């Protein structure tokens, strides 16, 4: 499992637009599963509704974990995504 932490900057947090993009991106790594954790709750980043249901807001710290064959590359792409969009 490759992990990194990220502090959300976007004022509305993980809202529909970035959630949609994130879920799409998370699904694109074949054989690798992406998890997102906020506090006690962990969801698969590909689960769009649950992801939005976490209610991640500006100032929240989230942990992104990647597990599978391509986890290093996935983590790198995701880190870039968070920096650009959230």
């Amino acid at each position, binding site marked *: 499992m490759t992990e990194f932490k990220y502090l959300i900057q976007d004022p509305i*947090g993980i809202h529909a637009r970035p959630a949609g*993009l994130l879920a799409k991106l998370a699904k694109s790594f074949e054989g690798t599963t992406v998890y997102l954790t906020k506090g006690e709750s962990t969801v698969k980043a590909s689960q769009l509704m649950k992801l939005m249901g976490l209610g991640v*807001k500006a100032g929240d710290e989230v942990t992104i974990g990647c597990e599978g064959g391509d986890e290093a590359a996935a983590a790198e792409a995701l880190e870039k995504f968070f920096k650009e969009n959230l």
Partner: protein
Amino acid sequence: MILIQGKGVSRGVVKGPLYFYKKPDTTVVKIEGADLEAEKSRLEEAKKKSIEQLEVLAEKAREEAGDESAILFETHAMFVEDDDFVECINDCLEGENCNAEYAVKEAGEQFAAMFAAMDDAYMQARAADIRDVSQRILNNLMGVVDGGIDSDVPVVLAADDLAPSETLQLDKSKISGFVLREGSSNGHTAILARTMGIPAICGAGADLVEAYQGRECYVDGETGQVILDPDELTLQALREKYEKQQEMKKLMETMRGQEDVTLDGRKIKLYCNIGSPDDVAAVKSNDGQGIGLFRSEFLYLKSDDYPTEDEQFEAYKAVAAAMEGKRVIIRTLDIGADKQVPYFNLQKEENPALGVRAIRICLNRPEVFRTQLRALYRASAYGKVAIMFPMITSVWEVRECKRACAAVMKELKEEGIPFNPDTEIGIMIETPASVFMASNLAKEVDFFSVGTNDLTQYTLACDRQANDLGKFFDPHHPAVLRALKMAADAAHENGIWIGICGELGADVSLLPTFLAIGIDELSVSPSSVLPLRAEIRKSIAQLCNLEKLEW
């Protein structure tokens, strides 16, 4: 030959199959003991169709408004396929051994409830997205057609009457004419038909029976006749009329690009009335020189909840930008009276035309007003936006509106959001009080625009929605025309301009009177622009007189 006589409310002759509009019935009932395999394959089919529709919508949004707008539909498409949502539907389907409709409805409600319960206004609002997506899947399961018209060719749409929210949903490209059993020439369907430039008939009555569904008919929007199986003579007359109409259209084409000026050099601003951003295409194709009335109600009528600032901003910006620096006069919320919106929870009134409507709602509910004003001012950075307040009766109302505008401008400035601080402000002249107070009101604003339907209704004490007032509801009444002149004189004495944005503006028989009064602007249905331009260019303003103001 079958002849149904109604009242013609939008001119033109057209032929097409009669199509009776049905309110979509999407009541979901639970059916237990369903054939699970069959239900599952129906569900798959409906999901597939939903995704296809959403992809088309996303593509259309991308072309018209860019990536940002497309993402909404793409997100909706992802909701349809969301693993948890699908699992929830399947669990319900198998657990309850029920029909697909019920399972989709249940799952949709469950997820919508999850969002509605979140302590974040943005996420709460997403509940509406989930409901929208479930509704789409349901529509596909139940065979409800997007746009309401299940036909490959344009139809003559028949109905009792159509509510504004219903006409908004209809796919206009599939409508070649309207025939209503009820309705009036000032009703919304009639106004819509004139905007679209297609023939329409109201008050066709009980003779219009559903047994005629699908039968080829002719609609003559001038005589108010619907004709099935015409005899040879009638057919010939209709053909001649149609050909004449086509010829006229060709002639009108020569008016495109010409200036709106009388033979003696009086220039008129010839603008258009529109009801939604979609109508801008008609304004452009008819060469309107601006928008004299953009009714903002569509935003409120088409949604189940107050439209957000961003939603409104996008709509206003789209129109302002599309008009490329030409004036776009946007009228603030004008609901109440005949236009009802459930979520406003307005009290039922004995006499809604005289009740809490239009600017009165805005001044009573500063938050609703503020949201709209913010959206309007933000849009003012993208074109020549002007703001117009409806149903004014007093100077204090205008001052209060202006204070609200000033407050919004201050906010935007502090937030660093661009807007045009010189955005013009105008008022509708549609109450007798505003006519009597015109010289005081003129000192407060940049322009007047006369709403002739309401001015007629209030001046003559005639309900504009009533079907049977007939000769009593007379917009040509000298009292109405004198009111126009009083307002125009007050406007000119105070150095501002005055226009007409009511239906009367397109009435060519009154053009000489308007020129004599000194009306500066006429805002009409897009389809009336070229014929009116032809009349203006034939007129000599100096020779026009005020004889119609005499009894």
